[in-house]
């Protein structure tokens, strides 16, 4: 278990149980907070294992934010970790709907549910 103390307006918390490390993102995950959120995510995805990113407290998500999430997932794959996104907030849901992405940020094929 690791904790990261917030140094700016966007808050993240880290928590985990039973071998799964979890990062809670909160506040804006947008172009405005991109730099900081990027640092947070990169500090989180550092070693193989089961990783979770909680999205319940994300108040706003835009393309920049989505891109960060995708970068995080890419990094996890590179390190051989599994990264899943949990409890998307309404703001996140809206974006997922617009972008036709599922909860795992995979493209949804029309007429299909789940990942390609």
């Amino acid at each position: 278990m690791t904790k990261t103390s917030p140094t700016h307006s966007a808050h993240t918390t880290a928590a985990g149980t039973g071998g799964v490390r979890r990062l809670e993102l909160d506040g804006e995950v947008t172009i405005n907070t991109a730099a900081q959120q990027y640092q947070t995510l990169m500090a989180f995805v550092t070693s193989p294992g089961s990783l979770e990113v909680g999205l319940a407290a994300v108040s706003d998500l835009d393309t920049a934010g989505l891109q960060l999430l995708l970068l995080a997932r890419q990094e996890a794959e590179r390190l051989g970790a599994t990264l899943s996104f949990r409890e998307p907030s309404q703001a996140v849901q809206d974006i997922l709907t617009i972008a036709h992405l599922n909860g795992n940020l995979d493209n949804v094929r029309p007429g299909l549910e789940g990942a390609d």
Partner: protein
Amino acid sequence: MPIDEAMREAFITFTNESRDLLSDLEEGILGLEDNQGDSDTVNAIFRAAHTLKGSAGLFGLDRLVRFTHVVETALDGVRAGTVDVTQELVSALLPCVDHLAAAVDGLAAGQSEADALDETTGDALLAALQPHLSRTGAGDQPRADGTGAVSGETWERTWQLSLCFGPDSLRNGMDPLAFVRYLSTMGTVLRVETLTDRLPPAREADPHTCYLTFQVHLRTTTSKIELEGVFDFVRDDSQIRIVPADNEIGSYVRLIQSQPPSDRIGNILVHCGVLTEQEAATAAEIQRQRCGNGGSAPAPIGAILVEQGIVPQPLVDAALRKQRRTSEARAGESQTIRVDATRLDTLIDLVGELVLAQASAADRASAGEQAGLLEAQSEVTRLVEEVRHRTLALRMVPIGTTLRRFERIIRDACAELNKEVDLVVTGGDAEMDKAMVERISDPLLHLVRNALDHGIEPCPERVASGKPARGTLRLNAFHEAGCIIIEVIDDGRGLARDRILRKAVEQGLVPPGTNLTDQEIYALIFEAGFSTADAVSNLSGRGVGMDVVRRNVAELRGTIDIESTPGHGSTIRIRLPLTLAIIDGFLVSVGSSAYVIPLDTVTECVELPATARTRNHISLRGQVLPLIRLRSTFGTTEPPPRRQSIVVVEQSGQRAGLVVDTLMGQLQTVIKPLGLLSSHAQCISGTTIRGNGDIALILDVAALLATHGSREPAPAMAAA
């Protein structure tokens, strides 16, 4: 009514051109039945109606304009796909074309518009057309104008938008996803794909740089131009591509095919709504840049459009095909020019004189034996031959146009007689002199009507005899030995030999009990007043036709034969000489006179064997060759030379050897018609002037063969 001279001339041009347009219109409408929705045909007939309307307007012929307008509207509907092409539509359109043709004829003959175009008839025809003009439903067919929508009606399409946002998009305050959200308000977003292929390794990424590409499938009625407009603010930095979704490519290809002609693929594509002006400008700019750089030939716009992903390949291909067809059609159009027929005739006469003068010069040149002069003369001969050939060719038209006109008549006749007949035209490319085409048209018409009326049986009778229910009438034309052969072939019941003979005896044409060959019996139907039809139909059976046909054919120096198989059908064969004016001939002398034998009838020349001096025939390579001694034919009194020659001639399947004194070689000469006094001379078809100024008589080989044939002891059929 036009008054002054210029207007009168223009009016004549108008009536001539209108006749052409109406002819095209009729042919095209008939073609619609067989060839539904062929876009070139549809466009052509629409343009014909449109042009006709416009020209009529120029002359203030308002009634004509109003009438044509309705027809044009109907054709526009066909073109746009809102009017279905049915047999009923065609049957309603054709009488309208007839009405217009009659009106044009009336106007050309000097009638006023009111007289030429009867409003009552016209209104009735238009009323018959009305039911077909109602819309059959818009359907999903794309229609084109600049924005891809027509007159307020919108059409839903699926677009594939490829939004490759530039690296600075985020920094510039744009949110790509907001665009995607906005698109969903313009239609139905069927699919979105977020492409991450541009993402760098995470540790190296810049959180403020955009690496994402979105592909959106959007179903919308919005035009491409409007969609393009959505991305105005990001365009500089990003690559935005909007193309029709894959499954719509087919519709677009069809749309391109139905476009009016254009020789710029950019215009074609913009007009369909798959290319915007801005994209066209971009592609043009790229082309300009590349051209400037390498100095080599500019890359084709089409290739650039495909390469840049602006327009999918299949659509560029379709546009290129359209462009090519347009240039081909345009090349064809611009190459024809109307020429006054009398001017052409004057030219041909002159060429005829030139041929004679040249022959005379050649004669003197060869007499003088100056090598240089001979060579020059030979060159002149070659050129004159070429000029003659091409000048005569000016008057040649393919017979197919005339033959295909019968399609209409057959269609109408079938409806009236309740028979089903297909018309097959083969050899339509065969060319003949324009004047002859016009004169053979009526005889052919009569033969066709005859075949329909008496030859082809009604469906039940055909089926009962094991034939296909639909009869076939074949019009075939081809060239043979300097002639053109036109055949009218039907697969009907054939000529009734016995009935013909019986009728002929009844009418006193043949003494009873005479023995006649089948051929001779069939030939009886050409006798005046002869008809075996028990019922006189509207079309034929009045017995005034066949003899007129034979006379017309004879006037053209042609022949007509019949072959028939009872139960299977008949073939009527008309043979006409190709050229009326100039002839290639073989010069021979008989006594002190010179004769010209048409070269296309000559197969070979042999020496008259001494043993055959008094015989009527010789054996030529194992076959009997009857001899015709021209000395006897023309009553020559001078003593014959020691050795005579035989010119073997053949025509209409008959062969004979003409015995002459000397062979004088080939020549090419102008046929001068016989004067009135000597026009009854048998076996002579004309005269010509030789190089040395003497006159030579041109032999009518067919007549010679026929006369000779009649001298043989034969059943009592009087010679023609």
